[in-house]
């Protein structure tokens, strides 16, 4: 058994490979990107499985589901909000079931390090009635991914693996086992996979019938640990990385609190009952929403016991947990530490790189709109979101992938003018095409600025589908008149020309698309070195 240094994300990727992975699909998004990046690098060397950056998370999910239908083991991974995009096939795949093992990795971002919310993917597993794992360390990330494939094939349903930023982006050594061979091709049964009501009702009944078995599996999982120890006044229920913070806080204690480590869902009901029965009060520690805590408390609580956690303020209801927060919730005194310097420390937020093409486009856009008091710039998910910050202060919304175009249309429909949408090439391919099609048919009075830097920059430079000539043909194909598709090169020397072109298209009372074409400076640098 060899030991390898891996990110949490990479431990998941390697676990899948060693479980006999045949195909993996994803769309980039922090903190999940490193899963498929690892698989892309690896498959380029070994050429024995497929690893693809898909156009978006929904297509990624459907591609993985197709591989599962064909009997092969498949992986689909994305950040937590990516599961929103993939929610339609995700929910329905619980009904069709999995033929080859299908593992869905959703990487949550408590604390919103690089996200617009901190939704907790465990609710999605519960929503879909499927089994889920939550690793607390790298070894578990590897081991659980391997086990998830066996379980997915045994239950014939997809299995979800919940990661969080802290584990995804932490590195440690992992002991890896021998690889298992890939599955042979074996098509699914059409009666299971045609979700006409007559089949879907039968399949849903089967899925509901598996729920008791899933609870039994959870209660018996080797990853869930119950220790009724020296101190029975307090029982701690901890999941994922919160379990680490708990063990850290009490590592040196002779009689630490009794505890239950929860690593699988549906929650291990039998183990929870045992712990709760054995202790006077319960503290629930979980990174994300109070998912376990709410199930234990329900509407009426537990008679004779106090159950504390995020719902009663024992821990903050939002943000990422830390060892210090958990230590305080356990009532342990803070460790002696050096005092902070007392000097007011200027923050250092992220910013656009020196020479970034987005900076030139945003400057030109600001100039073009300087006399348009009623203007609004709807933006999207990408590096250019940083254009919201000074010195640009150039964009006014950022909601979700592709929202810029749809929102600009809605605002234009009710009279906002000028309505401008700013969206990157990768985000446009992901979710911008459909709203632009609608706007083209309606000839909506708005201006769409597509920033074509030929990459998915914010997440580290993954490939993009809607760039260059293909992008221009795509826009034309959607029905935008050729004379209303303008191209600019965002460089300081073209500033005046770019301002003029933007002004002309903003002044046009109908749909215009301006494409700003210049490669990402980070990607240029990579090519040079």
């Amino acid at each position, binding site marked *: 058994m060899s*030991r390898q*240094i891996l990110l949490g994300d990479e431990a998941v990727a390697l676990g899948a490979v060693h479980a006999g992975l045949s195909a993996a699909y994803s769309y980039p998004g*922090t*903190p999940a*990107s*490193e899963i498929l990046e690892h698989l892309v690098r690896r498959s380029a060397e070994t050429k024995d499985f497929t690893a693809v950056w898909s156009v978006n998370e929904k297509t990624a999910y459907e591609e993985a589901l197709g591989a599962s239908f064909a009997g092969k083991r498949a992986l689909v991974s994305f950040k937590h909000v990516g599961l929103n995009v993939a929610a339609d096939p995700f929910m329905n795949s619980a009904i069709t079931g999995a033929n080859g093992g299908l593992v869905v990795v959703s990487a949550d971002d408590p604390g919103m*390090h*690089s996200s617009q919310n901190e939704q907790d993917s465990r609710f999605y597993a519960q929503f879909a009635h499927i089994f889920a794992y939550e690793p607390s*360390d*790298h070894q578990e990330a590897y081991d659980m991914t391997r086990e998830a494939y066996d379980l997915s094939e045994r239950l014939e349903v997809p299995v979800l693996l919940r990661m969080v930023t*802290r*584990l995804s*982006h*932490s*590195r*440690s*050594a992992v002991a890896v086992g021998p690889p298992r061979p890939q599955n042979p091709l074996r098509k699914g049964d059409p009666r299971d996979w045609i979700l006409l009501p007559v089949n879907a009702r039968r399949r849903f009944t089967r899925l509901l019938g598996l729920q008791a078995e899933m609870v039994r599996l959870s209660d018996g999982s080797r990853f869930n640990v119950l220790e009724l120890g020296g101190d029975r006044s307090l029982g701690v229920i901890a999941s994922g*990385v919160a379990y*680490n*913070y708990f*063990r*850290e*806080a009490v*590592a040196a204690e002779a009689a630490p609190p009794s505890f239950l480590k929860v690593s699988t869902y549906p929650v291990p009901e039998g183990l929870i009952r045992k712990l709760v029965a054995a202790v006077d009060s319960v503290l629930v520690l979980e990174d994300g929403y109070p998912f376990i805590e709410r199930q234990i408390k329900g509407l009426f609580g537990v008679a004779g016991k106090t159950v504390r956690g995020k719902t009663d303020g024992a821990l903050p209801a939002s943000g990422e947990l*830390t*060892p*210090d927060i958990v*230590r305080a919730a356990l009532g342990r005194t*803070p*460790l*002696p*530490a*050096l*005092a*902070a*310097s*007392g*000097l*007011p*420390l*200027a*923050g*250092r*937020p*992220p*910013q*656009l*790189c020196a020479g970034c093409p987005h900076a030139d486009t945003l400057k030109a856009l600001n100039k073009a709109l300087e006399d348009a008091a009623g203007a609004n710039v709807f933006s999207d998910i990408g*590096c250019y979101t*940083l254009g919201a910050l000074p010195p640009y202060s150039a964009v006014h919304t950022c909601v979700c992938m592709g929202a810029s175009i749809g929102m600009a249309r809605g605002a234009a429909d009710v009279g906002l003018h000028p309505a401008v949408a700013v969206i990157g090439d990768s985000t446009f391919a992901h979710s911008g095409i459909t709203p632009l099609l609608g706007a083209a048919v309606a000839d909506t009075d708005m201006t769409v600025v597509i920033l074509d830097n030929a990459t998915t920059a*914010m*997440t*580290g430079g993954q490939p993009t589908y809607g760039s260059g000539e293909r992008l221009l043909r795509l826009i034309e194909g959607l029905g935008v008149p050729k004379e209303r598709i303008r191209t600019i090169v965002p460089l300081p020397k073209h500033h005046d020309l770019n301002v003029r072109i933007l002004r002309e298209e903003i002044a046009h009372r109908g749909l215009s698309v301006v494409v700003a074409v210049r490669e990402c400076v980070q990607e240029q640098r990579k090519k040079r070195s």
Partner: protein
Amino acid sequence: MKQDIILAGVGGQGILSIAYVIDNAALADGLVFKQAEVHGMAQRGGAVQSHMRLSDGSIWSDLIPKGEADMVLSVEPLEALRYLDYLRPDGVVVTGLTPYRNIPDYPEIDRVLEAVRRAPRAVVIDSERLAKEAGTVKAQNVVLLGAASPFLILKEDSLLATVGALFRPRGPAVLEANLKAFALGRSAALGL
């Protein structure tokens, strides 16, 4: 035996390369480690940090609790100050002295360095000058790794072997400059 280190700097300053060297040296020395790092948005010129934990026993948390860190190793002095309250009272600060000014409100550098030097044990290194002397200004991170090395529980040979493995693929000149950067940083910290 355990050691907890906060690595600090600005996105693009090579924090993750330092972390890579320490990870691999720890593996070679038979230690367990966990190293939490920052990816994504903050890497675009923002403040970045990495929690590096080394032990010959077990490590629970990926994050270092406040008061538990033995060292803050920073490529930049303002970033060193950000994490002082993670240090145990006798912890050491190793930092470069050259400010990275990509923000409009960077404090007066003399006040920043004065605050750094108020730490009970502060090693302030002119990493920019030493990196240039070694042959490339890009090697400031390796200068600081060398400066931190006398305080680390890792073998110097294990660190050097990993520095070698990291830079050898980039050609003999880059390799030589980085090995020299390490040696210059180490000597500076030792007051040689």
